[in-house]
């Protein structure tokens, strides 16, 4: 009888515990924040799962290094957790979190500049730089050149413009959300983005033209 109860009961208990642990994944951000503030630390994991990719992606576009982006993403979630009691729950959680991450990324960039140790670490963890078996070497070279050109164009964007460009083009945030993240007026977002696009376009003019031409030929 005891053995039977273990075989039946244990899976039920484990399933229930797993369900309890994962139940936050479908809840709105504000509910999760409330739960964390009520002491349910495990609920915070749902926010990490939900926004980990986006935060890492934004950080990576700004700092251009996997190691730095990793540091920024991790630190952003920890800092957000530490400051969760200051978060205004009537506002979106992601833009608040993104602001923390972006500021960390900007600080990281400034430190890199000060120490002049900016590296080409980007290539290390980028699968696009890995040789693809069976791929046409000329296409491989062309792809690498395009990627490098874009990377350079983004790197050369002035401070302020780069963040706006990244948040709009890669993170697909609205102007209002970007204004919220960067704590600047909406009009500033609009003008910075227009200038950033112009800047990138000029920098990419040769690559953009040739790639577009080859696309059309294709």
């Amino acid at each position, binding site marked *: 009888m005891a053995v039977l109860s273990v075989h039946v009961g244990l899976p039920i208990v484990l399933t229930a515990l797993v*369900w309890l642990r994962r*139940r936050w994944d479908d809840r709105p951000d504000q509910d999760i924040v409330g739960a964390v503030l009520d002491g349910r630390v495990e609920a*915070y994991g749902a926010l990490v799962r939900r926004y980990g990719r986006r935060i890492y992606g934004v950080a990576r*576009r700004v700092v251009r290094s996997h190691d730095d982006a*990793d540091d920024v993403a991790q630190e952003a979630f920890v*800092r957000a957790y530490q400051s969760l009691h200051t978060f205004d729950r009537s506002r979106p959680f992601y833009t608040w979190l993104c602001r923390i991450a972006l500021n960390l990324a900007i600080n990281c960039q400034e430190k890199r500049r000060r120490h002049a140790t900016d590296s080409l670490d980007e290539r290390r963890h980028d699968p696009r730089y890995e040789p693809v078996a069976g791929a046409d070497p000329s296409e491989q070279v062309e*792809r690498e050149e395009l990627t490098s050109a874009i990377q350079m164009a983004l790197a050369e964007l002035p401070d302020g413009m780069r963040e706006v460009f990244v948040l709009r083009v890669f993170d697909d945030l609205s102007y209002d959300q970007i204004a919220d993240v960067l704590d600047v007026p909406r009009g500033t977002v609009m003008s910075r983005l227009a200038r950033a696009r112009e800047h990138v376009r000029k920098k990419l003019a040769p690559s953009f033209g040739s790639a577009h031409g080859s696309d059309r030929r294709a």
Partner: protein
Amino acid sequence: MKCAECRDLLSPYLDGELKDDERARVAQHLAACDACRHELAALRRLGEFVRNHAPEADPGDSYHRALFQRVMARIESLPVHTPAKPSIVSWLFSRWSVRLAGGLAVATAILLLALRFGLPFGASTADVAPSDKAQNFAAEKTTVTSDDKAVVPQPGIQTQTTSLSAQAEQLRTLAATHHTPRAAPQIAMVPAPVADLSGAGGIAGNAAEGAASQVKPARGGMETMSRLHAARAEIEFQKLFVLPEMEPDSATRSLREREMLLRREIAASTDSSSNLRRERDLAALLYHLAARTKDPRDINRALLFWRPAYDRLALAFGDSLARARMTHLEHLVLGESGE
């Protein structure tokens, strides 16, 4: 609309971020202008081009699992700025959606324990001989609930209650034995005190010594307060970091650099700081912020927040500077409220 004006609006037009009337004007111009239409097409292609050819920024699922584990490991070791954790019972039964699972888990666990250890569920309570303490407990329970049918608690519950009572008594005894009034500085200050005005929305300025000389106690600071309102700041006074030994100004700068993203106003002191110096740093910071407020109600609100900090300062180091500044702030409130 001229081409130059249209070009300026193409970027937000592309993003769908123009107001209706502007969008209509741009669309009208585009319908008639080949050059601007080509410009718009080029902008659109540029976005796609960059997205398609930019360096990959997702290291994959395994990385994100590792990131999740590292973040959770770190935050679980951090102090939480929250009330105490709820008990396991309230945690299990806190949400409708988990009541079934929680109840099921508890019931199954009890069943397993019962089968494993053979607890006398079927036995009458009369079979159980309660101890004297248990009888006392039951009597108290009966008195409190005014229940005619006195129910004797289960043995397990009695044991736990007795044990907890005993532990509490021991703790009380221990506390009474070892309690000695602490010296004032130990109560008031920590080795690296930090005044943390969390989320105080972009307030700039020198937080440490020197702030006092910049203080303009009259009006002004409208922008500061509007940001403060926008951030709906909860003002706190707490220690955040223990810093390596360094000069107070360096400590302040270091902390502000670390916390710049949260836009906190910070004053820091270190072990080597004299008490007077700590008092001056903290008082300067608090006074600096309060004096920059505009609305007397805000100053009053700030006083309510900061009064405990000032009291601790006064208790610890004497009330020379802190008391004078607090008095000045109170005067500001009273004076301006009376106007």
